[in-house]
């Protein structure tokens, strides 16, 4: 009895979300958007549960706020802000692009081909610049008392 030769499973799996080849940086904006999104929703769920502590009274609330005044939490808070800014700005780009805006018109491909990714690259640069600006401005929160 002979065994049928088996094909090798060449699917990249989760690794394929992060790195799969020498692709352009929009593919990394995609993974950045995923990671920041997961971080933000996880934070939001915890945040709703944590702020419910107000119902335990003024002292419990003050203790919780005291915890968040430490330098570690200030950095975490800033990273949260940065993640929200990145996710929001990239999200605005995706909102426009995924409805077909800023991608040009369909036209007969003439070599060298310009993909829709390259066509909206100027928009990507502007959005990333704005995001960087907002993140830099937001850094002031690290110095708040």
């Amino acid at each position, binding site marked *: 009895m002979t065994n049928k030769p088996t094909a090798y499973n060449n699917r990249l799996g*989760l690794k394929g979300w992060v790195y799969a080849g020498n692709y352009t940086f929009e593919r990394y904006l995609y993974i950045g958007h*995923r990671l920041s*999104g*997961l971080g*933000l*929703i996880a934070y*939001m*769920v915890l945040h*709703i*549960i944590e*702020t*419910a502590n*107000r*119902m335990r009274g*003024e002292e419990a*609330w*003050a203790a919780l*706020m005291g915890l*968040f*005044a430490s330098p570690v939490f200030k950095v975490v*808070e800033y990273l949260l*802000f940065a993640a*929200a800014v990145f996710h*929001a700005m990239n*999200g*605005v780009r995706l*909102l426009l692009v*995924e*409805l077909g805006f800023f991608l040009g018109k369909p036209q007969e491909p003439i070599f060298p081909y310009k993909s829709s990714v390259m066509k909206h690259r100027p928009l990507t640069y502007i959005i990333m610049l704005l995001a960087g600006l907002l993140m830099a401005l*937001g850094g*002031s*929160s690290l110095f*708040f*008392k």
Partner: protein
Amino acid sequence: MRETRLWSLHILVIPIIAVLLGMHFAVQHYAPVFYGMSVEKARDFATMIERGRSTAQFVVYILLLAAGLYHGLYGTRGIIRELPLSPAMVKVVDWGILTVGVLIFALGTYVTWWTFVHPGV
């Protein structure tokens, strides 16, 4: 049209979240810049209760809660379901995420209402 409607709502709430979350950040985390108030004062119990008793705050928080939870949990559902799952696991993921969303929305709404009807400090 179901998946199209779910996705359309997911992107429709983007501008709502952008505006309301921006306001929330300004009040909670950047109070020294926008209100000349220290972060400590902005977050203390009395200030928080006083702010929470306004109708505007109540409406904004409920909207932000609904929009943020829907957007975030729809995205999470998409990420998890892009993994190879059995049909049974797909049902677990869908119903599990819906349950988490409903429970957290209920908790958040209750806390917001509790603050809104608080007699004050």
